[in-house]
């Protein structure tokens, strides 16, 4: 084996200076606008694991269970690192991505000594530059996924292996073992890398180049690295088993290989293979030099690059090969191309001084990477419809919705907790048993059947609902719960860290790392609990395929309403048959002691145990065998509240309800706003229920709110008197001209300050009076939303949508809908303009424009879109000019974001979009969102002075207003800055 080291100290210093410059440039590129692209799904999977406790994090990665984030096909090292980074308090996307940036830079740095050692000359320097400027590497250095970490550790282990072989010192071998083991824990690609290193050592041995005194440390080091991986081996095997497909292959072919090579060398470039060919040609030159000067080093490099390729050819899996599985090629090609550049500069630079030659080679490296680098401005602005957009829209439009419920105990919960902390409450605990308005949130992949109409917001689906809690439940003959709906929140008396997972149909832990409890309290029927109480339960054990069965447990407890609970039974994995199935169910029948009093408590206490897994109730049925034999248990299951045969049952439930939430008296023509009051009406036919308004009023009420669906019906089964509960403010939280009310009742009576208000629509200037409190004269451009909140700047927002055409801008000169999709263009080849007037009646201080221009690169002709703003309508200031020429491609269609701080606040700001002709477009649709935001000074607008109840209100046509006694959430942080 031979390594090449022929540097003078002067040359060394020059190299270091150049290397530092390369690193600085690489750092700037990787750190720039790091939060411009919000986290996407795979990164959230990483984040979800990283937020767990370290022990749970480790175990959860070799486990596919129902009650946590979805499967993550990576060993735990990156998650652990991010876990520690988050411990410093970081809560932004940039914090989550920062480790990858640092590992990416580490990879660039390590390539320097590795290149020098393997290939000699200035190869290391040029290789570092090629990797530092590789857009493919830049991309994976800005993602919270393990590729940058893996590459840095793999390169580090290669370098340390060469050092150890050369020096044969203990500390070098120890460092190698550490790096190799860490590499194995960073990615499953690590095993191929270790195999390549082992193969290299075997080659050395076979060729007699491995001195006998190095043989033992080699073998021991490899063995130590492999042994260090043993604790994770079950997880590794679990994932291999998961992806194994006896008939499958990874689909590696020449086409994929060519595409991968193009991504590695010219990521983002839309043209042909010219630059890839150039890069590969230089790399081949480097390979020739490597073989001529350091054959074993060249073999090591080839093995390291080639083994993942071989793996992709021979592995039988159900997953298709992706260029990132061959990511070893990225630094590998950079190393070879670095050697090629070194060869070229040495051979052809004639009389140039050494340093000038190095600078020239670095510039050539930059030129080789230029196809990718040139797309950086667009890369930073790439749009991928992140979940944060959907959550932002959800939060902006939430009005009086206060809580989020989730159809499954993962996915959207993690998104919402990350992006909307404090914006919504949740159902994690039963601290508030009062009436709550909520969104039930589902993803695009699954939504529960028969759960009503879901509305789509980007990649989310959601349904608004109102939740009342009617516990304690009357128990006449039977009660059952199967966790397929949200009825637990309606009927359980208390819960903590437990709730229904509608997808798995289990009672699951909200936070899988903590214990949880759910408690149901039952009222005895008249005459008390008779006979015996039978409890039938079913439980599901979900086992990991890679770790021992979970030692989670469920304890069933019973009590008599005094607070003290007695364990009745405890289930662990030992109670299940030790079958091969990873999901097993067990039924359990118990006889509960009959309570002497009128109350019975039944609780399930879930313990996550020391090993992450799940043991969860899927069903329970409590039967009071002493009840009437005529009870229809099917009906009871559908409406357990119907178990009480007495006429006062509905009244009893209503009385419980009244202790938790306000039941308001409906007054014709008066709309209640800003509170959570419910209207309770007796159902017609069987007499009025005390506490509810007479049934005779119901038709008039429904005439005032046509089509209104009830939130809850109490005690209406079997033809008994019942109560129906309505919440008009759930269906229509805002006041509007088209509404029925000329008077409003705010926040339940008395004087309550209006802390915030939101106006939607078009109109103005107009004023709004609230019982003597008057807003400044306001104006709303068409489709605008104006939010005013106490202590915050007013926020005006327009979300243009070009699906149907330009809408109603202030000025439209020749702009029409383009047939290409949700975009506008000029009707002919001449220029056209669109002007939006942003005004709300208050001085505008700041602007933000997000838009997506696109233009065709016509030979000899510049096409594009120019964005300009004006604070007075006379002088326009250009914000952006997106122009393309000659490329013969449609370019752009990436978001461009600009903000302006107005030195002189203006009551009206114009935004002008000038299109060069019909070869230019502006997009505004679901995948290319356009947004115009303005922040205005609203001193004294809110809080309004308190309002008397009820108060008259007059709204201009086309305007609706939502009033709230609470502040609006600050959502500006969710707006991307670039």
């Amino acid at each position, binding site marked *: 084996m031979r390594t090449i080291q022929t540097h003078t100290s002067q040359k060394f210093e020059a190299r270091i200076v150049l290397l530092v410059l390369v690193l600085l440039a690489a750092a700037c590129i990787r750190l720039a606008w790091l939060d411009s692209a919000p986290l996407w799904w795979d990164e959230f999977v990483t984040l979800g694991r990283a937020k767990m406790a370290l022990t749970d994090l480790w175990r959860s990665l070799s486990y596919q269970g129902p009650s946590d984030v979805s499967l993550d096909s990576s060993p735990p090292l990156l998650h652990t690192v991010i876990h520690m980074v988050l411990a410093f308090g970081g809560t932004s996307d940039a914090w989550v991505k920062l480790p990858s940036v640092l590992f990416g830079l580490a990879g660039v740095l390590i390539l320097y000594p590795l290149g020098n050692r393997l290939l000699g000359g200035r190869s290391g320097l040029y290789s570092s530059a090629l990797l530092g400027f590789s857009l493919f590497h830049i991309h994976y250095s800005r993602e919270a996924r393990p590729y940058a970490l893996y590459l840095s550790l793999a390169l580090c282990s290669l370098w340390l292996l060469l050092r150890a072989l050369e020096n044969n010192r203990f500390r070098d071998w120890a460092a190698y073992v550490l790096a190799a083991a860490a590499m194995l824990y960073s990615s499953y690609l690590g095993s191929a890398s270790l195999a390549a290193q082992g193969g290299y050592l075997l080659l050395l041995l076979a060729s007699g180049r491995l001195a006998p005194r190095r043989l033992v440390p080699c073998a021991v080091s490899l063995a130590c690295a492999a042994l260090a991986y043993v604790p994770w081996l079950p997880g590794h095997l679990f994932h291999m088993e998961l992806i194994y497909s006896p008939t499958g292959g990874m689909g590696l072919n020449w086409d994929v290989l060519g595409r991968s090579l193009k991504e590695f060398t010219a990521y983002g470039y*839309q*043209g042909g293979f*010219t*630059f890839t060919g*150039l890069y590969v040609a230089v790399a081949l030159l480097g390979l020739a030099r490597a073989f001529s000067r350091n054959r074993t080093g060249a073999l090591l490099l080839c093995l390291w690059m080639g083994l993942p390729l071989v793996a992709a050819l021979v592995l039988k899996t159900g997953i298709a090969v992706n260029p990132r599985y061959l990511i070893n090629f990225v630094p590998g090609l950079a190393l070879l191309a670095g050697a090629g*550049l070194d060869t*070229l*500069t040495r*051979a*052809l*630079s004639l009389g*140039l001084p050494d340093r000038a030659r190095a600078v*020239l080679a670095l*510039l*050539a490296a930059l030129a*080789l990477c*230029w*196809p990718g680098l*040139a*797309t950086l*401005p*667009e890369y930073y602005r790439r749009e991928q419809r992140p979940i944060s957009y959907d959550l932002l829209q959800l939060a902006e439009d939430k009005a009086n919705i206060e809580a989020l419920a989730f159809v499954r105990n993962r996915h959207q919960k993690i998104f919402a907790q990350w992006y909307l902390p404090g914006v919504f409450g949740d159902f994690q605990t039963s601290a508030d048993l009062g009436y709550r308005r909520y969104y039930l949130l589902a993803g695009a992949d699954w939504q529960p059947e028969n759960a009503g109409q879901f509305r789509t917001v980007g990649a989310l689906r959601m349904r608004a609902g109102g939740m009342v809690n009617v516990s304690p439940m009357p128990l006449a003959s039977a009660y059952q719960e199967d966790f397929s709906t949200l009825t637990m929140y309606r009927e359980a008396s208390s819960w903590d860290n437990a709730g229904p997972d509608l997808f798995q149909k289990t009672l699951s832990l909200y936070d899988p790392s903590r214990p949880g409890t759910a408690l149901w309290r039952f009222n005895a029927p008249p005459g008390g609990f008779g006979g015996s109480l039978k409890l039938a339960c079913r439980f599901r054990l979900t086992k990991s395929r890679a770790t021992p069965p979970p030692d989670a447990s469920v304890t069933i407890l019973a009590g008599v309403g005094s607070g003290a609970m007695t364990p009745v039974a405890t289930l662990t994995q030992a109670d299940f048959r030790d079958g091969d199935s990873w999901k097993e169910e067990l039924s359990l029948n118990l006889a509960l002691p009959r309570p002497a009093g009128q109350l019975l408590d039944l609780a399930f206490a879930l313990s996550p145990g020391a090993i992450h897994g799940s043991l969860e109730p899927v069903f329970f049925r409590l039967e009071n065998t002493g009840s009437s034999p005529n009870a229809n248990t099917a009906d009871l299951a559908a409406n357990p509240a119907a178990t009480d045969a007495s006429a006062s049952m509905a009244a009893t439930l209503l009385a419980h309800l009244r202790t938790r939430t306000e039941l308001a008296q409906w007054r014709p023509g008066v709309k209640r706003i800003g509170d959570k009051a419910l209207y309770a009406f007796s159902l017609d036919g069987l007499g009025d229920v005390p506490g509810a308004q007479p049934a005779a009023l119901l038709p008039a009420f429904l005439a005032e709110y046509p089509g209104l669906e009830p939130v809850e019906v109490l005690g209406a089964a079997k033809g008994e008197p019942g109560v129906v509960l309505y919440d008009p403010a759930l269906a229509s939280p805002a006041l509007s001209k088209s509404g029925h009310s000329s008077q409003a009742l705010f926040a339940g009576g008395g004087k309550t300050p209006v802390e915030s208000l939101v106006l939607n629509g078009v109109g103005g200037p107009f004023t709004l009076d609230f019982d003597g409190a008057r807003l400044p004269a306001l104006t709303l451009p068409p489709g605008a939303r104006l939010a005013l909140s106490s202590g915050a700047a007013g926020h005006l927002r327009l979300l243009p949508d070009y699906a149907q055409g*330009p*809408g*109603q*801008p*202030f*000025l*439209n*000169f*020749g702009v029409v809908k383009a047939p290409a999709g949700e975009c506008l263009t*000029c*009707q002919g*080849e*001449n*220029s056209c303009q669109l*002007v939006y*007037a942003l005004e709300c009646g208050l001085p505008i201080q700041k602007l933000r424009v997000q838009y997506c221009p696109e233009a065709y*690169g016509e030979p000899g*002709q*510049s096409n594009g879109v*120019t964005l*300009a703003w*004006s604070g*007075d*309508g*006379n*002088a*326009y200031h*250009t914000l*952006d000019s*997106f*122009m*393309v*020429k*000659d*490329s013969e491609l449609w*370019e752009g269609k990436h978001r461009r974001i600009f903000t302006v701080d107005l030195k002189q606040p203006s009551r009206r700001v*114009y935004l*002008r979009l000038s299109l060069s002709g019909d070869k230019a477009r502006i997009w505004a649709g679901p995948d290319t969102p356009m947004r115009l935001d303005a922040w205005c000074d609203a001193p004294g607008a809110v809080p309004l002075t308190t309002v008397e109840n009820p108060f008259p209100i007059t709204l201009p046509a086309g305007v609706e207003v939502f009033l709230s006694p609470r502040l609006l959430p600050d959502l500006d942080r969710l707006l991307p800055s670039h």
Partner: protein
Amino acid sequence: MTVPALLLCLSLAAAPLLVQAPLTGTAQAQSRAPTPSAPAPKAAAASPTSAVLPASGPAVTPTPDSPKVIESAVAPPPFSSLTPGEAFLLGYRHLTGDTVPRDATKAAVLFLQAATAGEPQAQYQLGVLFMDGLGMPKDPLWAYYWLNLAARSPGLSEDVRAQARGRLQSLQGELTADQKRRLGIK
């Protein structure tokens, strides 16, 4: 020249083919005042010249995407209750800041509304706005188009038409060959 240098040159030469560097912005709105014609008398506002777009004449041969397109592509004007004459007068007040805040963009909206309805003074003013880049982006093609319509309108005073002709003459030098082709002029 060395090979790396060649490589560099090749790459840099090809770079514009890949991604275009943004051009500098279009011309900024000029602050110099337009050359307005005299405000139309009330009679003119009440009965504006009934020139119908597209204009026919030797100077301008309307191309498929010029006048008719404007007519069909313009959204319902925000001041639709005004007659063309009223729209012009209000626009002129906004242009000059006469008892209302000076606002060339609002003036352009009003002039556009009146001009597309055939009001020659509005056509003239709109041409001036396009020529000077005031309220509208500077665009010699559209300036020429509107000024040409105004210059040929018998409803406009000879003084103003003369001004229009003068502006047209100076615009001739600014138009590119392609723009002249689009306008149908030599």
